[in-house]
């Protein structure tokens, strides 16, 4: 099957896979699509400008004009949540993609080269894995300064280690197989062998792990923004909104509640999706 054919079959395969995982997977998928939709079409969906201040209207409870209330600068909470999805999804997807690419490459190299290099890499990865992702991200973000690029890098660092592990295992297994030796005998370069023969086996596992870790990424992003290490105001981020809500929690419950629910819903959707995909692929988990 050519690569193009594979690409066209992919959505169908995905759909079939998801169905095997049960209805919860579809709920998660639908929820995720809704959130993505909300982020992409924010401009048309959001009733107000997210950064437009209106001090006269500050800290107003939910009303017909401001469906979810306003914050301490009079900005519409609903619009900020809608735009906030952009940041969360952007950071989540970018950090995971970066972690995925770097992690997979390093993992494959580590497994392929073996020896001292492999031992060193695994030692570093083990240390990274023992450290809680939040604290790791906190350190990196604190040291680098708060901006969206640094946030993405910080979160990518926390997500990097599991992908290294994941890519290394099948590489070790396949490295020993005969067709690799045959390929070497034919003069194929290492790179070609790795990409063409080893990589395709891991793709599905990597993607599933990606979706599960994206949930963690978004959680970490919200946490870091809550602490104040996230994107600077006035940009709307869910974590930052929750922080503001927390500071005003006694007066304005809506300010803390709605962004919290938004984060929760997104992480839940990703977990449902990732779980369903994993259930569908791993026969041990499947209930007979």
């Amino acid at each position, binding site marked *: 099957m050519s690569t193009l054919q594979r690409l066209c079959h992919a959505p169908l395969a995905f759909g079939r896979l998801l169905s095997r995982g049960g209805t919860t997977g579809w709920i998660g998928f639908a929820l995720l699509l809704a959130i993505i939709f909300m982020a992409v079409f924010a401009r048309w969906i959001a009733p107000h400008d997210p950064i437009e201040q209106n001090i006269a209207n500050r800290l107003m409870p939910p009303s017909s004009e401001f469906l979810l209330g306003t914050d301490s600068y009079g900005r519409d909470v609903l619009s900020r949540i809608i735009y906030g999805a952009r940041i969360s999804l952007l950071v989540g997807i970018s950090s995971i993609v970066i972690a995925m690419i770097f992690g997979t490459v390093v993992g494959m190299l580590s497994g392929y080269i073996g020896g001292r290099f492999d031992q060193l890499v695994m030692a570093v990865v083990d240390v990274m894995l023992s450290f809680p*992702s939040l604290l790791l991200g906190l350190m990196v973000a604190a040291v680098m300064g708060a901006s969206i690029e640094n946030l993405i890098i910080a979160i990518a660092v926390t997500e990097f280690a599991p992908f290294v592990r994941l890519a290394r295992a099948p590489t070790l297994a396949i490295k020993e197989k005969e067709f690799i030796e045959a390929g070497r005998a034919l003069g194929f370069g290492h790179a070609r062998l790795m990409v063409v023969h080893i990589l395709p086996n891991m793709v599905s596992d990597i993607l599933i792990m990606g979706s599960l870790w994206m949930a963690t990424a978004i959680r970490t992003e*919200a946490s870091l923004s809550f602490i104040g290490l996230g994107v600077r105001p006035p940009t709307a981020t869910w974590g930052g909104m929750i922080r503001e809500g927390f500071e005003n929690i006694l007066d304005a419950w809506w300010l803390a509640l709605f962004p919290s629910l938004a984060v*929760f819903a997104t992480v839940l959707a990703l977990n449902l999706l990732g779980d369903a995909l994993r259930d569908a692929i791993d026969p041990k988990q499947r209930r007979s």
Partner: protein
Amino acid sequence: MQYVIKRIILGVPTLLAMFTAIFLLVRVIPGDAATVVLGDQASTTALEALREKLGLNQPLWRQYADFLYNLLRGDLGVSLVSGRPVLGEILRVLPSTLELAAASMLLGLALGLPLGVAAAVYNGTWLDHVGRMVSLLGLSLPAFVGGILLLLAFAIQLQWFPVIPMGSGWAENLRNLVLPSCTLGFIMSAYVSRVTRTSMLEVLGQDYVRTARAKGIAPARFILRHCLANALLPVITVTGLYFGTLIGNAVLTEIVFNRPGMGRLILGALNTRDYTLLQGLMTVFAAFIVLANIVTDLLYGIVDPRVRIGTGRQV
């Protein structure tokens, strides 16, 4: 005994690696720490004096050696902001964080273990499905979001608990502990119940379980001594690994519930760019995590006789 010593010795290189990583990370900062502390308006002499005092003019390897040497003596440096020894600051708030961590772990296990066992024993029934849903909720809930939701519901709306911890004394202390430890405990129980369920299911399919059934022993003893005792092994490993995440969550939760603890210290250190304090905090965290790993390994050795006694000769 040999096993214990071996485990402790193995922890040292990990600890060293972590300390090195922390050291390097903090040194990598762009900008000048002295300027940050004293401000832009400070005189060059004052800045120089501070840099000299902080040892920032030394070559990197010299700073590293000093860092390690000080660590061994228990000296984590001095706070850039308050001037007080870092270790002292940390030790002052550490009990509060540990208290929260311990209470949360207790709750997490007390809730998660029975749920996981029930889900495995009643596999496939509505109880199992409900359990999985609830555990999924726990996994998806960021610690601070959970804290805020509980705060909104029980402290602000229902007013059953104080928003800011108040009062001293034993009973008040407990009352202040309820909401934050419930948040963390619920989240932890999600992980625990998942792993318990999977592990129990695997144990239930083992041959020795069938042998135990064939002996006609009472169901309670059967579940506890034959199933759970064997299912606990992966649970111990996961709980140990979770300790790091628990600390991370505890830090966030302390901020939400305004508790005195490492959380507040970290926040302060971040805001004032107090790098020595930050470095000291991270070092203490690293030490605790390695300690948790060692304890987990030891516990595993206690529970699993194959590890403790070793396979050796089979007669």
